Every structure is written in structure tokens, then in C-alpha cells.
């Protein structure tokens, strides 16, 4: 098991390294970094000075090697855009994203799993239809639009929630709903499908025959088995939320890591982009790993793997 885990971790780190190398090269292909840093108003002399100041005139491999050497020692360098250490910049932005991500996935799970179970217990009933409707809406509605609708209702019409910023818990209510709602349909449908599958299994009939209460059958016997793929999906969704809530962060002016990454790409702010990519890929690795552990706990058969 230990060897297996280590192997998996090693592989994951190689993936992270490959991703970082690729992104480094891609950023160079996307435009002259010196011109991007200098900005639209720059003259030739500005760009030349920046090229030399940041060392863009050196070979690409040397630049990447230097970055990697410093990064493994925890030094991500200075952001080209903000004249600040990347570590400090990201730590600041990441906290917002983390809160949003955790709230978002919690919201999604708390709404999706009960709905999915309810829909599976009474397939093709009214509750199933309603659940289907909610999930189709969540899938079909672009989050920027949903976000604006919420703002119109809760910030302009009723004025109970602030439309932007991250100063208090009230600022996170609408972003959580938008982000969570987007992740919800997948989780719900997977729960429903898993439950339908499990509920027709022999051991459920056996459990009922033993006289187990319906509650016990549902949660102890059925849900525990049905939820395994949901855990894997939720882990991926969580990684996605931490790295990709760009639209939500931008609409609600939350200034999280996703928005920072998006903006930094446009600015060719290499050190920031590199560090964020590394952190995002580590998130995926950690969450996938955690979901494997959780699944192994839920399903003893997996512990053998």
C-alpha cells in the first residue's frame, strides 16, 4: 500500500512538472513577454529595458531552469506585474478562493445528494421531474448570467446582499450559490443513477427482508455504495472550483486565485502563472488522492488495490 501510494505520488509530481514546463513554453509562444509587461503604452525603449531587466534575452531553458531551481526551494520569485513576491500575492488571493471552493462544494453536495436520493426513491415521480428540471437549469444556465440575475434580485431589488467584495460572510452567499449550482447537476444525476442501480441490487432486497428500517436501508446500505463515484466527481469538481471559478470571481469582484491566474496569463506574468499552475495541479493531485482514500474507507474492496 505504501509503495503504491508513493508510486502514485511520484507520478503525480511528474505530471505537475510536465504541466509547468508546458505552460512555461506556451506563455512564450503566446507573445513577447517584455511587450506584455511593458503594456500598451510602451515605447521601444521601454520594452528593450524590460527585456534586459528581466533577463528575457537569455535562452528559454536557462530561464526555466532558474525558475525551477528557486521554486523547489519555495521561492517563486517576484511577480512581473505586481512588484511583489509571488508567494505573498498568491497566499492573499488563495484564501478567498478556498473559502469560495469549500462553500461551493458543500452547497452542491448538500443540495445534490438529497435531491438525487429523493429522485431515485421515486423514479419518474413529480419529485424526480423537479430534480431533473433543477439540474437541467443548472447545467444550461451560464454562471455569469445566473450571477447577474441573483445580483438584480438580492442586491438591487431587495438590497439584502452586497454585489461585490469579500469583506463579510454576506459577500459569499451569492457566489457560493452560483458556483455550487454549476457543480450540482453532475453530482445529483450521478447520485440518482447510482442509487437506482444499487436499489435494485440483491443485497438491498436482503436487507429489507431482514427487516431493516427503510432509513437504514437507504443510508447504510444503498447510499454508501452509490456515493463512491460521487466522491470522485466531487474531488474533481473541487479542484475545478479552486482553479477555475474565474467567471464567478470576476462578476462578484472577489479577486481570488482563479481570476489572478486568468489575468496573469493576459499580462504574461510568468512567475505568477507558473506558481499558480503548480498549485492548481497540486490541488488536483491532493483531491484525487483524498478521494481515493475516502473511497477506500467507504468500500473495503478498494483497500486491496
Amino acid at each position, binding site marked *: 500500500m505504501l509503495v503504491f501510494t508513493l508510486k502514485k505520488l511520484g507520478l503525480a509530481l511528474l505530471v505537475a512538472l510536465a504541466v509547468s514546463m508546458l505552460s512555461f513554453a506556451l506563455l512564450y509562444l*503566446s*507573445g*513577447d*513577454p517584455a*511587450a*506584455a*509587461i*511593458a*503594456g*500598451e*503604452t*510602451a*515605447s*521601444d*525603449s*521601454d*520594452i528593450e*529595458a*524590460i527585456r*534586459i*531587466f*528581466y533577463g528575457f534575452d537569455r535562452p528559454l531553458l536557462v530561464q526555466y531552469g532558474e525558475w525551477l531551481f528557486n521554486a523547489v526551494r519555495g521561492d517563486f520569485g*517576484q511577480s512581473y*506585474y*505586481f*512588484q*511583489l513576491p509571488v508567494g505573498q*500575492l498568491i497566499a*492573499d488571493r488563495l484564501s478567498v478562493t478556498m473559502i469560495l471552493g469549500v462553500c461551493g462544494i458543500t452547497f452542491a453536495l448538500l443540495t445534490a445528494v438529497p435531491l438525487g436520493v429523493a429522485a431515485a426513491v421515486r423514479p419518474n415521480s413529480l419529485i424526480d421531474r423537479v430534480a431533473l428540471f433543477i439540474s437541467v437549469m443548472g447545467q444550461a444556465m451560464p454562471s455569469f448570467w445566473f450571477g*447577474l440575475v441573483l*445580483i*438584480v434580485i438580492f*442586491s*438591487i431589488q*431587495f*438590497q*439584502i446582499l*452586497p*454585489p*461585490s*467584495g469579500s469583506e463579510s460572510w*454576506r459577500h459569499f452567499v451569492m457566489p457560493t450559490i452560483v458556483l455550487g449550482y454549476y457543480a450540482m447537476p453532475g453530482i445529483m444525476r450521478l447520485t440518482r443513477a447510482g442509487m437506482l442501480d444499487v436499489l435494485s441490487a440483491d443485497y438491498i432486497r436482503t436487507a429489507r427482508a431482514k427487516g431493516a428500517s427503510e432509513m437504514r436501508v437507504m443510508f447504510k446500505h444503498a447510499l454508501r455504495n452509490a456515493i463512491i463515484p460521487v466522491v470522485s466527481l466531487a474531488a474533481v469538481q473541487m479542484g475545478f472550483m479552486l482553479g477555475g471559478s474565474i467567471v464567478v470571481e*470576476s*462578476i*462578484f*469582484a472577489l*479577486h481570488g486565485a482563479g*481570476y489572478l491566474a486568468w*489575468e496573469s496569463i*493576459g499580462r*504574461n506574468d510568468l512567475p505568477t502563472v507558473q506558481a499558480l499552475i503548480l498549485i492548481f495541479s497540486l490541488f488536483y493531485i491532493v483531491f484525487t488522492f483524498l478521494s481515493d482514500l475516502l473511497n477506500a474507507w467507504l468500500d473495503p474492496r478498494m483497500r486491496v488495490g
Partner: protein
Amino acid sequence: MKKLLAGASIIALTMVAAGSAWAGKADDTLKIAFNKELESVDSFYNSAREGVIMQHNVWDGLLYRDPYNGEYKGNLATEWEWIDDVTLELVLREGVTFHNGEEFDADDVVYTVNWVVDEKNGVKTQRNVNWMKSAEKIDKYKVRIHLKAPFPAAIEYLAGPVSIYPNEYYAKVGPSGMGVEPVGTGPYKVVKVEPGKRFVLEKFDNYHKDSPKGQPTIGNLDIRTIPDFNTQAAELFGGGLDWIWEVPADQAEKMTAMDRFTVANESTMRIGYLDMDAAGLTGTENNPMMDVRVRQAIYHAIDRQAIVDALLKGKSRIVNSACFPSQFGCTEDVTSYDYDPEKAKALLAEAGYPDGFETDFYAYRERDYAEAMMNYLNAVGIKTNLRFLQYSALREQRMKSGTPISFQTWGSYSINDASAFTSEFFKFGSLDLARDEEVRDWLDVADSSVDPETRKEFYAKALKKIADQAYWVPLFSYNSNYIFTKDLEYKPAMDDIPRFFQMSWK
């Protein structure tokens, strides 16, 4: 049901009362939105418009240009005099203090100038400073600035982007410290910086009384970056913001119709233009852009007024010269080409392209403007393929191998002198696609002559030839829409720099 509704509205009302979103006049705080994250408040280390705004409000220059009438006045310097073509002597104002209590004197000027001109320090906006060679202290309140070469626009730069830093503080904290805890002599002092996100400013009570900027009246400024316009509008409606800018024309029209806020429109110094490969950088073999008749045909083919009326609106207007009309040396008395598609077709036929030709059309912003122009070109037979790139990618392409035709803009960094525009693009720099030696030589004379009349004469010569040869199609000036609470008294200036110290509550 009625009871339920009443209960719900009471809850809603209490929550409103508990909220912090109250409009500004009551607590003397002007709540402002920026659209983009400002990289660093240190004005020598950002190239953003938001940075220029901060610079004007937090720091002072040696001189000041009145944004409404263009007159130069002393600010940190009270007198200035040219000793010779490359030496400017300035007498400094006494009794000025920085926000941190440091006293302002010649040492600050000398330190700032010598720091920014040193290329090792990597100042981001080189053009703003690289005309200076060094500064020298004569006595405590007298300095000399030495230039590398005669540079008549020096006064304009000293009144604009060159602000003076406190020497002791800057030596200690450097650009990264200045970026998070800025210290200047300006009308507002910065009390809080959350990099890129939020800036809180407070009226500087010790602001020097004789400043040409006047005294600030609004007590606090709370600036937040909100990238999405719709969110800004929602904040404005809810009282979470008092002032927004760069509002899209169609939205500004709607807001005007609503009559809840003041909507002000003012021209900016940014000009849009089409740049054509006259020198054949993309290849000299069968390159239609090298033929002056083709370039003139392109000029005739585009209805610039229609684009202004339909898309830019506001105070935008068409321009005919390769500079901003208010800039020193800029003249609009040059050949212009009216919208005449028939004439365009005739010119194309004359040049040997009776059926037109196909070309890539590059652009990096305002895709709708670009597409409008492409439609006009298609109408006269020039088939265009849009290549819409990131700014940096397009710039690289232009520097390395040129582009046949591209839609560009230039804001001159709000410098009111043609040297910041025409000379930037027609003196064989990497973005000079005309490569006209005569134009370059004239501009050299105009840029370095100390006699204003000579300067005007030579800028005019250069601009006339640029127009005759149709190296560019100058398009239009941009405009900016400002929307703010009716409690606020504010008149935008043409250089698109909001000066918060000139705003007041009604």
C-alpha cells in the same frame, strides 16, 4: 399570506439597515471603481491609466499643467529657467512636507531623478524619464536637471509623469515598498493598499497651501477594483459606489435615460488609426500596401464618421492627422480623404487591382470597430481576414515581421506634445512601417529644436507628408463616460485623468 409578506419585508428592511452600503456624501467617503487591477502604486513601475490617476492624486510634479486651459504652473518648483539647451534650473518650493513628515528639498529631487534615469533600476516607463541625464543640487532649494540632448517637451514631462519621491524613504523601501505603502507630497495620502484589489486614500491635511492643484475637499476615497461593468452598475444602484468610469457608450445612454446619476462624457487623448505596411516589411514582392494609391483607396473606403456615430458616440470625433489635436505641434491642416467608395475602387484599379486583393487585417481591441472597417474594405473589393490577437502577440508580430494592415491606438501617455505621438512612430523605431527618411529627419529637428516656431514648422511638414503618402489612416479620438452620484460636483478633463482633489460634494 399577507402576514408572511409583511414579515419578509421587515426582515429585508432590517438587513438593508444592517448593511454597510451607504452612499458617500454622508460619511465623506467617495467610493470609486477601477476596472483593472493596478500592478503597483509606484508610478514609475506601472504603465496603467489607473496608475496615472494614483500618481496625480498622491504625488506632485515639479510643475503642473492646468488640465482645462493647458497653462504650465509651478508646483514643487516655483521658478524654472533654461540655462542652455540641455540644462534646466529650478527653484524649489519651501515648506512642503511628504505624507510621512519628511521635509521636501533638493535632495529629494536629485535622488528621484538619478534613481529613475539609472537603467539598472528598471523603470517601466522609460520614455517618461530617459530624456534626463542626471540632477544636481545647487543648494537646498535649487536644482539643475541635465538632459541627454535638447528636449523641448521636458516641461510637459515634468508637469506630467515625473513625480518627486522622498529620498530617505525611497532609499529604504524601494519600488516594492513604495508600491504597498506609497508616500508623496500630493493632495491625498494612501492609508491602505491591498495590491490590485483596493486602495484607501485620505485627504492630506498638510497639503501645501499654494499648490496649483488646489486643496482636496472630499475626506476619504475608497477605490475598489471591480472588473465587471454590470457589477459596478449594481453597486452604483445600491449605493456601494459613487463614481465609475470608462462606461460603454450603450450603457451610458441607458443610464442617461434613467436620470438617477450624472453622466458626463469627455474626449480622451487616445486616437485610433490604421497602420499600413508602406515600407514592405512583410515582403516587397507584390505587396499592394507599398502603393500609395492603394493606401489612399483604403482611406477613402472607410466611413469614419459613421463608425463614430454608431459605435464610439459621445465627444469622439474623426481626426485627420497622426497626432492628437491639442498636442503641441499637431496640425490638422493636412490632406484628408473623405468617404468615397467609388474613388477608392478607381484608385485600386489604377494601382492594378481592379478586382481588389486579399489581406490579413490585424487588431487587438474593439473587435466591433475592426469588423466595421473590414466591411467597408470588403465593399470596395479588399477581402480581409481578421487576425485578432493579444496585444503582446500583435506587438511582437509587428516588431519582427510587420503586418500588412492593423488597427492600432495610442494614448500618448497624456503628454500634450506631438513628440509623444508622431515621433514615436515615424522615426524608424520597430513600429515604423513607413520608414520615410525625410519624415524622420524633419521630426528630429522638431523634437530637439528649442524654438517653438521651428518645432511647429517641422511637425507640420512631417504630418503633411504622412497624410499625402497615406502612411496611416487616422481614425477617431476615443471618449470616456463617467457616471457618478448627483451629490458630486465634477467636470472631467480632456486628458482622461480623474483628479479626485478637484471633486467636491454638492
